């Protein structure tokens, strides 16, 4: 039994190790920007997107089903060694949330906001902060693709003034705000801040209330150091970036009616040793204090059953082509070379 056709809502422990297909119609709406690049290539090659049902994702989904949404938000943190499947578990959970009709705020990689920024504008709203127009407008565009149907339903509760001539009135739909952010690139970071604030206020509401899922990949990038520099070559601290400042407010648990699911990531992180994978090491003191209390969800390497399932899936999709890789000897060698690490196995099977 390799494949199951149930959507994430109906999956349970008996489906552990089986693959389920993400329907093609969901693909472009739910995941415009969340998936790891190698997985995207795999989807293009096999002409379908299959995700393995694994223990961490099932645990997260069961927590989300049973949580009480009138209390302050619970924060879940996925951690594990490099390549163990944290981002894929996050995407699995995000798919569940969007099939249940939640509003999903998916930040694909927080590290992209603290490094390699070509344009740093001083913020108009707050004197000592910096704006990142390109990253903000990209993210708003993807946010618009993911949550089309919510944009017309949510109304703003406050009047926002952008320049002397432009302002968005109270009661206008959220879609208008997002469109303005995408077109007016200069104020897009402030638009992001406004969007996050509105969603935070309205998430737990009883009339027309929706549930908000904040999914952040590489959350350890929000605390720590950046590689960006001001014009006088002094380093920029993460607090001085508008996007990071607003996102940190989102991750605080002072609002209710949703959940915050975060992943640690050493791969894109700055100034972190490559052997670090525990929350304490990657988040640092400041980050751990802000994230505390959270529900830690460890993501381990493949178990024997999961490895079998992955191996059979690759065989079924005609991906393992080397004649020796289909024998017992080859399989033992794959186990030895990859140590059951999902990403290492994927890279090995790519050229075998």
């Amino acid at each position, binding site marked *: 039994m390799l494949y199951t056709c149930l959507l994430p809502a109906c999956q349970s422990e008996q489906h552990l190790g089986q693959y389920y297909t993400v329907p093609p119609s969901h693909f472009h709406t739910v995941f415009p920007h969340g998936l790891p690049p190698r997985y995207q*290539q795999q989807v293009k090659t096999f*002409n379908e997107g299959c995700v393995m049902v694994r223990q961490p994702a099932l645990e997260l989904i069961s927590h989300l089903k049973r949580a009480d949404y009138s209390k302050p938000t619970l924060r879940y943190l996925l951690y594990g060694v490099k390549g163990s499947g944290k981002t894929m578990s996050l995407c699995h959970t995000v798919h569940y949330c969007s099939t249940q009709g939640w509003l999903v705020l998916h930040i694909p990689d927080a590290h992209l906001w603290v490094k390699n920024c070509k344009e740093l504008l001083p913020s108009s709203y707050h004197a000592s902060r910096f704006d990142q127009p390109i990253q903000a407008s990209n993210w708003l565009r993807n946010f618009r693709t993911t949550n089309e149907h919510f944009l017309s339903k949510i109304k703003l509760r406050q009047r926002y003034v952008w320049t002397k001539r432009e302002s968005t009135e109270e009661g206008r739909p959220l879609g208008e705000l997002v469109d303005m952010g995408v077109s007016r690139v200069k104020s897009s970071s402030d638009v992001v801040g406004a969007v996050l604030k509105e969603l935070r206020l309205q998430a737990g509401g009883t009339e027309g209330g929706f549930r908000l899922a904040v999914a952040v990949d590489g959350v350890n990038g929000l605390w720590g150091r950046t590689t960006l520099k001001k014009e006088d070559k002094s380093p920029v601290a993460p607090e001085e970036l508008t996007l990071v400042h607003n996102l940190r407010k989102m991750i605080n648990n002072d609002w209710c009616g949703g959940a915050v699911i975060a992943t640690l990531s050493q791969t894109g992180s700055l100034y972190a040793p490559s052997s670090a994978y525990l929350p304490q090491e990657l988040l640092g003191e400041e980050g751990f204090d802000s994230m505390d209390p959270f529900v830690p969800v460890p993501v381990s390497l493949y178990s024997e059953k999961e490895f079998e399932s992955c191996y059979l899936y690759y065989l079924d999709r005609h991906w393992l082509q080397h004649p020796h890789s289909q024998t017992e000897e080859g399989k033992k060698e794959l186990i030895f070379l990859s140590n059951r690490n999902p990403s290492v196995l994927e890279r090995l099977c790519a050229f075998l």
Partner: protein
Amino acid sequence: MAASLTGLLKPWTPRVLLVRWSRYNPYYLEPGPRKEVYHIPETELTPEQKEERELKSVRPIKAATNSVTSSVFNDPVLSKFVNMMMKDGDKIIAKGIITQTLENMKRKQVEKYHKAPEGKKAEIECNPYAIFHQALENCKPVIGLTSIQKGGKFYQVPIPLTDNRRRFLAMKWMITECRDNKHRRTLMYEKLSQELLAAFSKEGNVVKRKHELHKMAESNRAYAHYRWW
């Protein structure tokens, strides 16, 4: 010279002798890294294998190179190709390029396979190793040319080639073609995968170069008797 001296060599003769690149005394035997050979029990050995085993217990054996493994995925032809592609001894980069090439070829073929209708699926070859070997076979020239001096002038004379020379020429042409005739921004593995797939279906510049060599040899048939070996 080394072949005739083998009978005179004893274990106490010096280990190192200068014989072209190999500095080993020809008394030493080649290493045999495959595991299956040693798993056959005593009773099932053929007489030659028994002899070989006895010889191995007496004679010294050369040290195995770093590139030879007992892995089932070890391929001598591919290792030779990697060595030929290597520059300045950087085998990591060369091996990386080859693995990316194999992956790229497999991706293209598997994508075509999944999109093809049922009838055409059996004709699409997805195994990158099979494609590589077949492409190399298609590029190997059958006959070569050499320059022979006769009466003050040099003539291009057609000669037969050994297997090693043919394999070397095919690989050399493939690598030079991919290094020279590509756009500045195309990466090596991309160009290599395109050339190998073209050679697999007998199109492309390398196969063209092989055909041109054959035509030259055919046109110089008259000088074939200048060859004296």
